[in-house]
């Protein structure tokens, strides 16, 4: 057969199949898989681009040194003279949190104090009014002025030209900040920006010794000179200092967003796999329906390869059409995702490139061809003799081949999604276990149903018989639907239940404000102030910054396991404190706490239990810390369990007072302030200009808002999963439709009324949905129990609402879908069915 004839015939047959509705499910299932994949792909791509956009500009220079202390002269040569000699431009930017006031209003802000030659690279964009048109400037605010985020004007009910107070200094707000090149990772910070000139810092009196300030030293110049400077500087870095060069910095995306992206990726994978199941079921049915046509074609002289070409061409066509439509749909769907997450994203999100589209196309081909090929290959093997003997079916392909190739494709897909083979195999192992357990449970419930069928009416019994007769297919459908529901329930439950649980676990008067940077000489005054204002507070703790560098004399990064090398606690300065007594709500798990007032020969330290476990630290181990300019050791004498979510001051390391009280420190505490007392904050900040107050209630509300936004986005993605899950049912109903039509026609011929058949269909699909619902809620309960117990350490409470609602809703949904897709059984004339079935 010539190629053009093959193509013409394939196109013609494909068009006919499409018109007859034979290809709809294949196409729609593919559409769901590809649109969910590309929507997530486009979305992730745009977010990543937004993160890495102008990496150099975002870092703010060709080289940046982050430090928690001002960079000091080192050795015989200061870094400034070295930089000047290399003709590098440089400037140091100070970052710290503080509170600004305007009239009666106050606000926690993130202050950035810049010098005259800031910014070194790129430009700032500012305007003269909130949300006004942007102008580009190559310098920061002059002394006496402040440039602020538009949000500050709103929050403080002020306008450009008015003054705000920061500590002891009053600054005129002269411009609104639209874009800072080096804002980078803080894009998602909760606190709005105030940019001021460094020259005003001393007058503001907000930075004292021990205050938490981050110093970013920006350098810019010829690349050789930068590289040389970097080589010179690197060995001189002290703990708490690091060099960043553009492109090296991992864009820091908000944790919620990263997790959401991961979750969406996983949800999309589930959608793809479920769609693949629907495709495989549909392809098997397609193949079975084409045994006759293949036999006729063979009889009329078609060769095996002609047949293979015709069918593969059709599949390829569906793959292409499905993928292209899926890509278009995915492209549109990402806008909804961006909209749902708009508050978390930067204002300008660059457009996505076509990478996701290409991978969508590739995925479409792999999924469709991969999952239909075994069925199509059977068509190739149809004997032409089938025209004479209808019972002659092509030999089924080896189960090993079919399931083996499906498994390989699944592994490849998961690998593609997770980017890690080990993760893929472990997830797959877990998934197989979940599958088997769920399958077992479903099978068990079916047995129960079967046993109790004697109690049911005729129509319900007939429905159940239908269900149980197609046991294999029924199990797969129920499994797919149950897992889909479970995924959705777990997400919903995470939002409502655990958030509520967590909130309930906090007493009403739990501290909702943290205050840090209380200067040592102001501690008694501050305590007095709290008492006068009748504010319930935690104990006041000293706080000094230091770094853990060795465990038993071994550098800490060598001493810990590979997984813990990047533990956050090893990569930043920690807040160290000392105390005579164990903190509120802390529990000593092992070792002993020192006696009050006890002076020990060797410094003693108590370590938080989870960190101890991660670092492999035991009682008696000696830890080396670096604070200020010296290293010193302490022996671990106790391990504590800490309830971090109590909102009391808590620390990884607590020392015996005699060990470290000589270190420079500021003090911190937390207190409860009712909403109506908020007005007091302003007085407090006026009275103690150096302190920084963190309004945790606002942060908590913001956190909740972010979490619910992320969850809405995830739920949106789960709609794809639900659609894919329902496609499995549709595909299965379609696959059994011929048989159902025959049975329905026979029953109607024998006098069964349509109502009886309708009721039996309702009971068939309804019980499937019911069982899927029960299994889904059971699974969710298990996840909820484990999560409450081990992750959130909250009390577990059964999901009564889910029990009351989900199984019934699932039964209704499946019954509606099933009876709708099998409606022909009721509407088609029995005579026509029996005649066609001959």
């Amino acid at each position, binding site marked *: 057969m010539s190629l053009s004839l093959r193509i013409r*015939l394939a196109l*013609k047959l494909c068009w006919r*199949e499409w018109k007859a509705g034979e290809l709809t499910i294949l196409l729609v299932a593919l559409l769901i898989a590809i649109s969910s994949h590309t929507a997530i792909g486009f979305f992730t791509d745009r977010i990543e681009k937004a993160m890495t956009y102008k990496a150099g500009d975002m870092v703010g220079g060709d080289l940046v040194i982050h430090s928690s202390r001002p960079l000091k002269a080192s050795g015989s040569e200061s870094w400034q003279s070295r930089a000047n000699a290399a003709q590098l431009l440089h400037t140091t930017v100070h970052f710290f949190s503080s509170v600004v006031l305007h009239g009666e209003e106050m606000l926690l802000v993130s202050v950035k104090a810049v010098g005259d030659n800031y910014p070194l690279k790129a430009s700032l964009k500012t305007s003269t009014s909130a949300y006004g048109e942007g102008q580009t400037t190559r310098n920061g605010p002059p002394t006496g002025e402040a440039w602020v985020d538009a949000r500050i004007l709103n929050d403080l009910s002020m306008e450009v030209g008015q003054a705000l107070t920061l500590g002891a200094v009053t600054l005129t707000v002269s411009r609104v900040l639209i874009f800072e090149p080096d804002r980078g990772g803080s894009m998602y910070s909760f606190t709005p920006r105030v940019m001021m000139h460094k020259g005003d810092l001393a007058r503001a009196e907000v930075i004292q010794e021990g205050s938490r300030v981050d110093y970013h030293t920006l350098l810019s110049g010829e690349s050789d000179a930068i590289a040389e400077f970097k080589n010179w500087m690197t060995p001189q870095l002290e703990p708490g200092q690091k060099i960043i060069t553009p492109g090296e910095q991992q864009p820091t995306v908000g944790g919620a967003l990263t997790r959401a992206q991961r979750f969406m990726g996983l949800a999309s994978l589930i959608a793809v796999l479920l769609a693949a199941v629907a495709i495989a079921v549909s392809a098997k049915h397609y193949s079975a329906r084409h045994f006759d046509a293949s036999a*006729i074609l063979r009889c*009329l*002289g078609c060769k095996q390869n002609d047949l293979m070409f015709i069918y593969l061409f059709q599949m390829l066509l569906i793959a292409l059409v499905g993928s292209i439509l899926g890509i278009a749909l995915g492209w549109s769907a990402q806008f909804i995702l961006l909209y749902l997450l708009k508050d978390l994203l930067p204002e300008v999100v660059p457009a996505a490139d076509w990478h996701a589209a290409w991978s969508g196309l590739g995925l479409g081909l792999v999924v469709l061809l991969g999952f239909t090929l075994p069925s199509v290959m059977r068509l190739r093997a149809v004997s*032409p*003799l089938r025209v*004479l003997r209808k019972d002659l079916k092509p030999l089924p392909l080896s189960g090993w081949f079919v399931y083996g190739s499906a498994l390989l494709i699944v592994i490849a897909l998961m690998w593609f999604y997770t980017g890690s083979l080990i993760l893929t195999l472990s997830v797959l192992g877990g998934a197989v276990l979940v599958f088997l357990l769920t399958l077992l449970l479903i099978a068990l419930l079916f047995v129960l149903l079967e046993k109790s069928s004697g109690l049911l009416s005729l129509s319900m019994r007939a429905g159940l018989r239908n269900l149980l007769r197609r046991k294999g297919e029924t199990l797969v459908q129920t499994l797919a639907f149950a897992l889909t529901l479970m995924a959705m329930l777990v997400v919903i439950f995470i939002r409502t239940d655990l958030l509520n649980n967590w909130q309930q676990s906090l007493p009403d008067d739990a501290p909702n404000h943290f205050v840090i940077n209380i200067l040592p000489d102001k501690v008694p005054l501050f305590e007095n102030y709290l008492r006068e204002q009748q504010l319930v507070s935690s104990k006041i703790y000293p706080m000094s910054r230091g770094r853990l560098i060795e465990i038993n004399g071994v550098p800490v990064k060598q001493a810990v396991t590979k997984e813990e090398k990047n533990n956050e606690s090893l990569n930043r300065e920690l807040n160290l404190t000392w105390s005579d007594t164990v903190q509120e709500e802390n529990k000593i798990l092992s070792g002993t706490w020192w006696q009050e007032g006890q002076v020990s020969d060797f410094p003693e330290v108590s370590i938080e239990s989870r960190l101890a476990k991660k670092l492999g630290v035991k009682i008696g181990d000696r830890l080396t810390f670096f604070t200020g300019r010296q290293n010193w050791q302490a022996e671990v004498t106790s391990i504590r369990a800490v309830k971090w979510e109590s909102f009391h001051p808590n620390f990884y390391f607590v020392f015996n007072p005699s060990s470290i009280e000589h270190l420079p420190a500021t003090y911190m505490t937390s207190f409860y302030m009712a909403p109506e007392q908020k007005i007091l904050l302003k007085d407090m900040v006026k009275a103690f200009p150096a302190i920084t107050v963190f309004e945790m209630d606002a942060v908590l509300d913001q956190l909740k808002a972010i979490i619910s936004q992320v969850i809405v986005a995830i739920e949106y993605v789960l709609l794809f999963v639900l659609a894919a899950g329902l496609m499995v049912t549709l595909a299965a109903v379609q696959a059994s439709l011929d048989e159902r039509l025959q049975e329905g026609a026979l029953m109607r011929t024998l006098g069964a009324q349509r109502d009886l058949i309708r009721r039996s269909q309702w009971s068939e699909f309804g019980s499937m949905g019911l069982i899927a619902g029960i299994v889904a809620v059971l699974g969710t309960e298990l996840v909820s129990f484990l999560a409450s117990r081990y992750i959130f350490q909250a009390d577990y409470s059964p999901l009564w609402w889910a029990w009351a609602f989900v199984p019934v809703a699932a039964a209704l949904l499946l019954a509606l879908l099933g009876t709708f897709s099998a409606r022909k059984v009721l509407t088609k004339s029995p005579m026509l069915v029996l005649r*066609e079935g001959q």
Partner: protein
Amino acid sequence: MNSKQNNNKNTRILEAQGVEKVVTLGQETIRILEPINLAIKAGQSLAIVGKSGSGKSTLLGLLAGLDQPSAGSIHLAGHALTDLDEDQRASVRAQYVGFVFQSFQLMPNLTALENVMLPLELLDEDKPQQRAMEMLNHVGLSHRLKHYPKQLSGGEQQRVAVARAFVTRPALLFADEPTGNLDRATGSRIADLLFQLNEENNTTLVLVTHDPSLAARCELEITIDGGRLAACGVSETDMPPQALGQEGLQ
């Protein structure tokens, strides 16, 4: 007349020698056809009759090259079917053979016209649509061109099948119970059509039937019983017997 037609009345268009069919079901070996020899010349018509399950459809399948015999050889239009693989046999079928089946076997998703065009297209012949329309017109279905099989009555479907079978003017036409699913009157019209076209195109006709009147219209008739050639006879026509028989009569 089509170039593929073999007009020489003395040419053996189909010849089977020692053809037998044995199938193994688990441990059991079932002999469906005992060794059979037969030969038929171009333009003749042969009826294969016998009870249900006697093996007559099996014989038809083997003669048409739809299946391979367990032993023996079959030559169709000079091609040794038994030496060809499935694809080569498909080529031979496309070139020389037409089929009409009891259950019509039309492509359900193609219209009447497209069903008839299909074999022409498979052979890549010119003007398939025009020729198919002519053929459908010939069988009295010019008003049903755009109808799908399920929109046609049984008799109409079988007429489409006959049109499809004859449109390529095959050298040989195999028919398996062509009137089996039809009422007497419709069956009779289909039989008329078959013999008329057989006459017009000088097509060799091999048909399996239960219907004695249909068998009687064939020049030759063989009876299969329990896989054996039970009887061979000549119909009322004055054609000499073509040496049919189990013993390889020539």
